[in-house]
């Protein structure tokens, strides 16, 4: 690029930059007229980064906007503009011309004709059934050869547009004229002319390999059946003749094109094209101008269609039809040719990579299992004791402690089970249980805590909510940094391993270790003494017992087996030892789940915060009047009131967690360390090993897993709508 060009681009680039910054500052100022500090901070940050990068870093503006990239930017802007304008313009135009229907029916008919004609011919051309009308696709060959060759050479823009344009002009103009005529015979005549012209052109340009040899029996039968159907349907709205003509025309087309075999013949198939097109055109020409009442009825019905059409159309094409097709694919073999029944599903549930229960007896020998059983017993005993105290007889009385212990027990038990049963299916289950539980609990806790904070409530909430803005890929990279394990002897760059190794060093050192032991012993002793006091005076000691367990365990570890990352090497020296968070099975799964919990907690927190604020204050005040403590009023008043919100949060998160893919792909290296999940398995099978039937089956299983959630949502919505 010459120096003049570079200068232009440089100026453009600088101008764009200044414009963007100015626009940004302006909109920030508008958005925060009352919060100048926030606006100032954000704009200052943006400016600082831009300056740092462009000026200090030495990236020249012409470098960034260098030739090819500028082209791509312009091309992108162009595509964006065109697509946006097309879509919005389309609907504005469509609505305006439906409004037209009331006033100028003939213009409206003309436009309808244009759309139908363009659509029909465009569809035929898209099916590669028609050769080129005027454009030369292969100039070196003769005209007739163009009807034999496929469009392998490409047909270019004009090739795509010529047939639809022709159809639009022919049918649009024709229908417009038709509606202006008052005499039915004249209308039918014009319609016949249009149909004939269209039919002749189509027939002459049909590709030679796609010309049907008329199977007269099929044609006659199809026409009669079509006509009869048309009459039956038309009778209901009083338009019998139109129905007959339309039905007959469609029937003839089906008989002539679908039911007749394609032969390699040179005969131009006039019969199969002219007759249907004439019949259909005459069907449109039968009625003249409709009555005002008919027009009004048409308007109201068309309106709903016009408003809902595009959205529902997109839904159908992009969601409903593909989903159905996947369901069908899941019953087919790898290439999608033949049906194999439930083979794919069987394979999914029997393959060791998906369902591996071979080590299930290990559950009962794991530490987690014992902890779960212990907590279960604690929960039962506390409930029993409260029951005896409250009711004087052997009964169970639930309370925060016992419920908490039981829930913890269930959670730890699920981890114990799912860390032994391996395979993608159980991994997914593990993800769902862990992430949903932890994110909900932490989100709820943070919402409550933030509510009570005296200062910085919004800041705290923003910071916890911020990870939601980062992509899952970015989050995986962020946490991969933190899980980094460097070889022993080098500085640990990841926070977790740094803490772990430092802990190991600490618990093996001389004086610091003794100091910690002394402090822990003092703490444990004081806690024990407090607990004894409280037991004697019948006051709650839940929090204290938790502290006792933690400090007691730490004390034990510091005195005895030490705590932290270290090991003894061959020479008997103590060397640091790291934890390979992402590769050590099976708990590398849980370290990946931390990433999703990190992101989803903000979501739960925001929703719970709003829900808690929406609890009517009268409820809380009434509870206070009755003498409830804060925790009592939370568990007995607030929590039951926000139960519907809890349902929404849990169901939304279940759906999102089942779909987890990015984290395992980026941080978990696509599941090769026993941390594969269904979404990754589906991706690998469908797009890498190209076993589409199996991949489809996995997708269907994922769908079935979230189906209960869908049903629950529908049920709720239906209840609300009534």
């Amino acid at each position, binding site marked *: 690029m010459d120096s003049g060009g570079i200068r232009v681009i440089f100026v453009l680039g600088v101008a764009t930059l200044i414009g963007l910054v100015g626009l940004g500052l302006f909109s920030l100022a508008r958005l925060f007229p009352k919060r100048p500090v926030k606006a100032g901070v*954000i704009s200052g940050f943006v400016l600082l980064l831009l300056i740092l990068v462009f000026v200090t870093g030495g990236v020249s503006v012409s470098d960034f906007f260098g030739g090819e990239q500028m082209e791509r930017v312009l091309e992108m802007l162009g595509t964006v503009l065109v697509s946006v304008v097309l879509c919005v313009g389309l609907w504005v135009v469509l609505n305006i011309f439906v409004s037209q229907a009331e006033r100028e029916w003939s213009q409206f008919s003309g436009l309808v004709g244009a759309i139908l004609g363009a659509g029909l011919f465009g569809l035929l051309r898209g099916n590669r059934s028609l050769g080129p009308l005027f454009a030369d696709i292969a100039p070196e060959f003769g005209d007739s050869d163009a009807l034999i060759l496929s469009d392998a050479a490409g047909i270019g823009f004009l090739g795509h547009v010529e047939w639809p344009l022709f159809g639009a002009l022919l049918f649009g103009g024709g229908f417009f004229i038709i509606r202006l005529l008052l005499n039915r015979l004249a209308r039918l005549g014009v319609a016949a002319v249009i149909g004939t012209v269209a039919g002749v052109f189509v027939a002459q340009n049909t590709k030679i390999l796609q010309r049907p040899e008329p199977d007269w029996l099929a044609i006659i039968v199809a026409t009669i059946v079509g006509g009869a159907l048309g009459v039956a349907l038309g009778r209901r709205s009083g338009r019998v003749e139109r129905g007959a003509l339309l039905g007959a025309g469609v029937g003839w087309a089906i008989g002539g094109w679908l039911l007749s075999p394609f032969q390699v013949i040179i005969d131009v198939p006039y019969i199969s094209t002219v007759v249907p097109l004439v019949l259909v055109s005459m069907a449109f020409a039968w009625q003249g101008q409709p009555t005002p009442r008919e027009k009004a009825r048409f308007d109201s019905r068309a309106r709903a269609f016009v408003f809902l059409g595009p959205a529902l159309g997109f839904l159908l094409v992009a969601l409903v039809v593909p989903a159905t097709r996947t369901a069908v694919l899941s019953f087919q073999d790898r290439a999608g040719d033949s049906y194999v029944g439930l083979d794919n599903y069987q394979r999914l549930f029997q393959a060791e990579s998906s369902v591996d229960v071979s080590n299930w007896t290990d559950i009962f020998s794991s530490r987690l299992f014992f902890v779960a059983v212990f907590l279960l017993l604690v929960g039962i005993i506390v409930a029993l004791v409260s029951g005896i105290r409250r009711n004087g007889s052997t009964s169970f009385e639930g309370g925060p402690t016992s419920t908490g212990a039981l829930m913890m027990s269930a959670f730890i038990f699920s981890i114990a089970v799912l860390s032994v049963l391996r395979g993608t299916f159980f991994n997914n289950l593990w993800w769902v249980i862990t992430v949903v539980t932890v994110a909900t609990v932490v989100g709820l806790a943070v919402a409550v805590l933030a509510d009570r904070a005296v200062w910085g409530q919004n800041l705290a909430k923003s910071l916890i909510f911020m990870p939601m803005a980062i992509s899952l890929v970015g989050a995986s990279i962020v946490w991969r940094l933190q899980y980094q394990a460097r070889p022993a002897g080098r500085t640990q760059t990841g926070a977790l391993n740094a803490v772990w190794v430092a802990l190991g060093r600490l618990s093996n050192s001389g004086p610091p270790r003794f100091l910690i032991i002394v402090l822990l012993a003092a703490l444990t002793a004081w806690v024990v003494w407090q607990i004894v006091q409280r037991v004697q005076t019948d006051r709650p000691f839940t929090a204290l017992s938790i502290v006792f367990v933690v400090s007691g365990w730490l004390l034990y570890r510091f005195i005895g087996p030490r705590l932290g990352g270290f090991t003894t090497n061959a020479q008997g020296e103590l060397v640091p030892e790291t934890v390979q968070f992402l590769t050590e099975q099976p708990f590398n799964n849980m370290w990946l789940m931390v990433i999703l919990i990190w992101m989803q907690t903000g979501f739960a927190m925001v929703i719970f915060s709003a829900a808690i604020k929406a609890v009517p204050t009268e409820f809380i005040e009434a509870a206070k009047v009755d003498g409830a403590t804060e925790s009592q009023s939370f568990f007995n008043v607030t929590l039951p009131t926000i139960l519907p919100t809890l349902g929404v949060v849990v169901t939304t998160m279940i759906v999102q967690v089942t779909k987890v893919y990015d984290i395992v792909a980026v941080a978990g290296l696509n599941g090769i360390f026993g941390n594969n999940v269904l979404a990754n398995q589906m991706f690998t099978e469908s797009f890498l090993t190209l076993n589409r039937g199996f991949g489809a089956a996995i997708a269907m299983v994922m769908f079935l897993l979230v189906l209960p959630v869908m049903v629950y949502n529908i049920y709720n919505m*239906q209840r609300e709508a009534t």
Partner: protein
Amino acid sequence: MAAISPMPEGESLGDRLYRRLTDIPTWVLWVVVAVWTIPSLSLFVNSFRNRDAQRNDAFWNVVTELPVVGSGKVTTENYVDVLSANATNSLGDSLVTSLSIAVPATIIPIAFAAFAAYGFAWIDFPGRKWLFIATVSLLAIPLQVALIPLLQLYGPGTPYGGAHLTIPWTDKTLTLLPLNDLAGSPASVWLTHIGFAMPFAIFLLHNYISQLPSELFESARIDGANHFGIFWRLVLPLSIPALASFAIFQFLWTWNDYLIANTMLQGASSAPTTVRIANLAGDFDNTDHLLTAAAFVQAFVPLVVFFSLQRFFVRGLLAGSVKG
């Protein structure tokens, strides 16, 4: 320490300590906030340290690495490498691709879903309630269920991309949606995003539009406006907050999306930023020090959008979640 005595005679030191323990709001909140912020902070800090520093020292040592007062390992060269046009690891191309996916995928659904939401809310037609429930219940369908056929739709199929329907009992195939050459272009990605965004968009906007006061519409109808006029002149201006919420949501979602982009643009010459940094993360050669800067560049746009327009984002999340 106080002797064992019943409560009303004044609190012992132990009681006060216990109360401090259970009265935990303030400091626990800030511990949680610190834990939540450290990972992203470390990314930001690390992106300004050169390769040497990133490999050998933890990020909190950055204070010793500042240019003048320390070892000078803090630089912006990572950003230069990542952003300059001709470097092999440049993100410039992929930023453009990301934008060309995110913008249409944000604006077009707004247009379509606003129409549909208005239709569901204020145009009475038979089957309205069940159609609406069916539409919104599609929210729960995982992306994966529709992915394989969509990839087939965009080509290169046999003989060409598009929706082909083979008619039973005849050996003929009808092409319903003749699509050509969409494979490997951003259009395939944002068309998919539009389809997937519809249920959520319709749900969100319907929530808002159905709560507009009907007296407004009645008076407009008396003045002779039809549905389209009411929509264009009344509903659309009034629903701008809801539209903004959805726009932000959708923009963040499409900018941060990895699965659809990776599926549709496999092997394409220019991939969006998420795919680029995921590939960078999978390369274990000498470029992992650029990963931090690249990830931060990718996250920069959503973070700015998020922080400036947080109110709308939160409103979008809360739509329909909180009763009353």
